[in-house]
């Protein structure tokens, strides 16, 4: 009796939370799939008809936005890595007693509401702002050129908003490195550069994989940066899904688009993890568990 009860304990602990996740994450995915195959309008009502044309129609109509989303998110991820890796490295190895303060500065953007910090970039990159005036006088932007409402401003916003997601996992993986290991490598290879490529970088690979995923995934689905910092010409797939659901009320095509987005991202993640080494991400999970 007590043995059985002990065996059941973990399920009692898991139960409430897991039920919540199943009811409000897994089950909704089913309903979204169902909705994507329905037909009709808001006024006449919708009916389930295995309407596969929702997928083909919406894909051919919004292929530009799909390609654009993956392109913007990809560029933003590369930029975030270029900014974030050296930053994480400097905090981990040069931070000294300032480490915690520097980490606080990295996550500080999270303490101001997402929308407000994106609006701050609207101010910074505005047509009459100091930054843009300076860029004009340096010839980086033409005399009557704009920075807002370009691919550049949207990518800059995405890079900024998701940068902490890049820095934190990389920092966590670098922090764990035993500095004696690097010292040993330096003694053996006699070059700081080789020691970095052969020791530091491979050890921090799990952090890079986690960081790039945590940056790329939210960036692909984002619509705030394109909305606040871009125009119609920079609309991403998130903008389309949002307006189809909440403005146009064309639920079936919106659901089809969300479904395609989910599948594309999952496919990209699987390919990326295969390529980058699955133990980088899942290995850590397994080790901990």
């Amino acid at each position, binding site marked *: 009796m007590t043995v059985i009860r002990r065996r059941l304990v973990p*399920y009692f*602990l*898991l139960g*409430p*939370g*897991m039920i*919540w*996740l199943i009811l*409000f*994450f*897994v*089950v*909704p995915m089913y*309903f*979204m799939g*169902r*909705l994507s195959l329905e037909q009709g309008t808001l006024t006449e009502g919708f009916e389930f008809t295995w309407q596969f044309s929702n997928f083909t129609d919406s894909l051919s109509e919004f292929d530009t936005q799909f390609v654009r989303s993956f392109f913007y998110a990809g560029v933003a991820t590369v930029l975030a890595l270029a*900014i974030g890796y050296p*930053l994480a*490295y*400097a905090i981990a190895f*040069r931070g000294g007693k300032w480490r915690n303060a520097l980490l*606080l*500065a*990295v996550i*500080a*953007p*999270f*303490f*101001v*509401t*997402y*929308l*407000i910090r994106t*609006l*701050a*970039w*609207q101010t910074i990159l*505005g047509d009459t702002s100091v930054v843009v005036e300076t860029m004009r006088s340096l010839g980086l932007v033409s005399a009557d050129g704009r920075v807002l409402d370009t691919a550049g401003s949207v990518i800059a916003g995405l890079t900024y908003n998701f*940068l902490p997601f890049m820095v934190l996992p990389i920092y966590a993986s670098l922090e764990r490195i035993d500095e004696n290991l690097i010292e040993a490598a330096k003694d053996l290879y006699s070059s700081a*550069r080789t020691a970095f490529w052969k020791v530091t970088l491979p050890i921090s690979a799990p952090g890079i994989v986690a960081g790039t*995923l*945590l940056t790329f*995934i*939210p960036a*692909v*689905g984002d619509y*705030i940066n394109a909305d606040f910092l871009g125009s119609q010409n920079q609309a991403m797939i*998130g903008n389309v899904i*949002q307006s189809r659901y*909440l403005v146009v009320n064309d639920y079936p095509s*919106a*659901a089809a688009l969300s479904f395609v*987005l*989910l599948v594309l*991202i999952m496919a990209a*993640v699987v390919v990326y993890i295969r390529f980058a080494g699955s133990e980088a991400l899942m290995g850590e*999970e397994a080790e*901990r*568990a």
Partner: protein
Amino acid sequence: MSAPPAAAAATGRSAPARAWKWLRENAISLYAGLAIAYMLIPIAVIIAFSFNDPAGRYNFTWEGFTLEHWENPFGITELTDAMVLSLELAALATLVATALGTLIALALVRYEFFGRRPTNFLIVIPLATPEVVIGAALLSMFLLYGVSPGFNTLFIAHVMFSISFVVIVVRSRLIGFDRSLEEAAQDLGANAFTTFRTVTLPLIAPGIVAGGMLAFALSIDDFVISNFNSGTTVTFPLYIFGASQRGIPVEVNVMAAMLFAVTVVAMIFTVWQQRRAERLAATRPEQEEEDRALALAPARG
């Protein structure tokens, strides 16, 4: 870089060589400094513009310094209502998500059970799903069930997306937990519940608090999922989104600055407390060694 120039720079006495050496050694720190500035500049802009005195409805260009909006930050009823609603929602969602997440973390760290892999998968997968898809899926379900979105659907959604984060934070704290303390309590006659209440809970409390703080921050900042599932209910981020079309009142910046200040203070306080706890824990073994050394000293002498 090959070795010779570095060696030359190290031994060289000329100012340019020394400057070059300094620059090479500190390039990464300088780069990091610029990156930190990049992270903080928008925050400085937000705070600065909370003191702006805009001419029209748009708070985009600097017109002049005023304290007017700090004197009466809660003057705009809709904005204040949205903020109050956001705080209530975040408090409720945090409470439930932290409880559910902590229980899951306990099960994952403490017990061997059938179905661990799917459980882990179900916890990680919401983190790998874009918010727009989560929001859209939930709305699809509510639409098909004829549930009209509002505070309740927001609550459901906020608990849902916070659980995974709480699990990850609490689990990482549970892994380093010394179970012999619990065994000691049970040896001394405490039953399972008393042991949990008086030993386990106080020890894992910092982890639970950290998870709860994260859940609160996520909830109060959430826009995308709320955008889909709010109906006519307006949270703080949703108010900003609506106002962004017609011009954001300066009071929004004032509230953002307040929220920022409160969060920074809370963060510093938690870090300080953790450090103090670590220091207390760390001094004990040293103390013992010192005691032993003192005890041995006379014997040697």
